[in-house]
């Protein structure tokens, strides 16, 4: 166990990779619960695609250091655009959203295809390169995490009220437009923070799967949030350990990002099975659950 789960991470580059994956897993798991409650999976998918050209432009302008800021600019722009579009009901149609995301994505692909190291760059942007994460990038990830968790803690009641009952929340005086902008911005921030480590494509799994697995295991929000965070973090750890072990001891090169996602999917399958068994068992008992508030 020690050899499998601890030893690989005594190398500095593996240690940094582990820190980033665990922090990102916990962050994405937590934010994923908000996505689940608001049913924003498709919007999130759109965001991951629209951040891509920002990544490419940032890289073109100032190399690796520009990626974060390019992604941030694109993410902020899309968050604002999506809030506006959904607010005025222009994007109730999936089609409009699909057109928007493929357009952005194509722009990114066209831009990256002008580079000489085309395929390598494209792969890195899409699937990430967690093993080359620097100390500075780790610091950026930590800063985003602290910021997002603080916002979620501060706004948890308005966000829950809005997710549960938009009309009621509006009637109670909550500013729906502001809350939606904050939500979209938070999702964009997580996508941006994850670009280096897992790429713009795999981050959707980090955001959706831990929350879905946690939801399958519990009906209580107070449990779902920590469960999703822990699942995300553990899957990050296990995925890295597995891909390291496979390539060092078995000569099998497994991409770390992809391995993390597959571990997550396995967790989800397990959670679904556990949830089914739990519901079967509960049929025989009266449905009494944890505290009311």
């Amino acid at each position: 166990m020690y050899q499998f789960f601890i030893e690989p991470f005594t190398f500095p580059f593996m240690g940094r990779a582990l820190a980033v994956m665990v922090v990102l897993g916990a962050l994405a798991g937590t934010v994923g619960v908000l996505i689940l409650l608001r049913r924003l999976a498709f919007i999130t998918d759109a965001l991951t695609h629209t951040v891509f050209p920002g990544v490419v432009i940032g890289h073109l302008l100032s190399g690796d250091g520009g990626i974060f800021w390019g992604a941030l600019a694109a993410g902020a722009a899309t968050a604002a655009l999506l809030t506006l579009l959904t607010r005025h009901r222009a994007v109730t149609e999936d089609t409009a959203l699909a057109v928007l995301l493929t357009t952005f994505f194509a722009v990114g692909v066209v831009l990256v295809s002008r580079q000489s190291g085309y395929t390598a760059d494209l792969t890195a942007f899409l699937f990430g390169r967690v093993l080359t994460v620097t100390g500075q990038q780790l610091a950026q990830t930590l800063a985003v995490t602290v910021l997002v968790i603080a916002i979620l803690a501060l706004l948890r009641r308005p966000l829950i009220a809005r997710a549960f009952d938009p009309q009621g929340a509006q009637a109670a005086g909550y500013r729906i437009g502001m809350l939606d902008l904050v939500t979209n911005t938070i999702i964009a921030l997580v996508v941006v923070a994850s670009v280096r480590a897992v790429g713009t494509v795999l981050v959707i799994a980090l955001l959706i799967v831990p929350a879905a697995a946690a939801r399958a295991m519990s009906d209580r929000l107070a449990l779902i949030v920590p469960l999703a965070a822990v699942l995300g973090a553990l899957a990050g750890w296990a995925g890295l350990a597995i891909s390291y072990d496979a390539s060092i001891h078995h000569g099998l090169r497994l991409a770390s990002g992809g391995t993390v996602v597959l571990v997550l999917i396995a967790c989800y399958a397990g959670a679904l099975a556990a949830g089914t068994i739990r519901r079967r068992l509960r049929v025989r008992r009266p449905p009494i659950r944890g505290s009311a508030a």
Partner: protein
Amino acid sequence: MSTREEAEVRPQALRLEEVSVAYGPALALEKIDGGVAPGEAVALIGPNGAGKSTLIKAILGLVPLAAGRVTVLGTSPAQARRDVAYVPQADTLDPEFPISVGQVVLMGRYRRIGWLRRPKAADKQAAHRALEQVGLADRARHRFGTLSGGQRQRVLLARAIAAEPRLLLLDEPFNGVDAVSEQALLDAIAALKKQGAAVVVATHDLALAHLACEEVCLLDRKQFGFGPTRATLTPDRLRATYGGHALELRGDRVIVAHS
């Protein structure tokens, strides 16, 4: 209709003065005029698309007025919001949402609790009392979505009661509600009125208007009557409001056929 004269004598919880609301170039509501006194209820009655929900939004201050004025508890709708509670239709809410009945009712206290503080004992007591008032105190720990439609509607009313409103707005609260839940809703509304709250109910249900409301507002974009229930719900006025959908039975009773 003596609403106008009464307004001078009694302070009104809600006052509508020639309220018009426009969506784009078309008027959704035209010159709605009337009021509700504390402790009384008014039923908004009219066909689908008559503008009942729009009028409720206007009272909540959520749609801009094209003309006229809405006065809630002596002030503007936006300023009165703390003392106004709104009950949406239960079936518009996500039944899969991971939230317990007790938590839904506690939401009625959120504005008082604020963003960061934990709920105080007083908040939890208010939520519990509200749930007792709709007869569902034993369901506090169940997930909201596991309850029947009528029970969910009662939970949403309990959430409104927990907010201790002086004006209560309900949007079609009796749609798809069983007899037991209907009685529980009526009892809870009566109790609120006794405590001095004014109530506005948008509904299709003429029987409910007779049972629970002192006044009715008949509307189909325009106002076809606003006044005491018995005097206002006349066959002629109902036919005018519902057009061809109103059918007369035995001279003095009218039923309304919905498409």
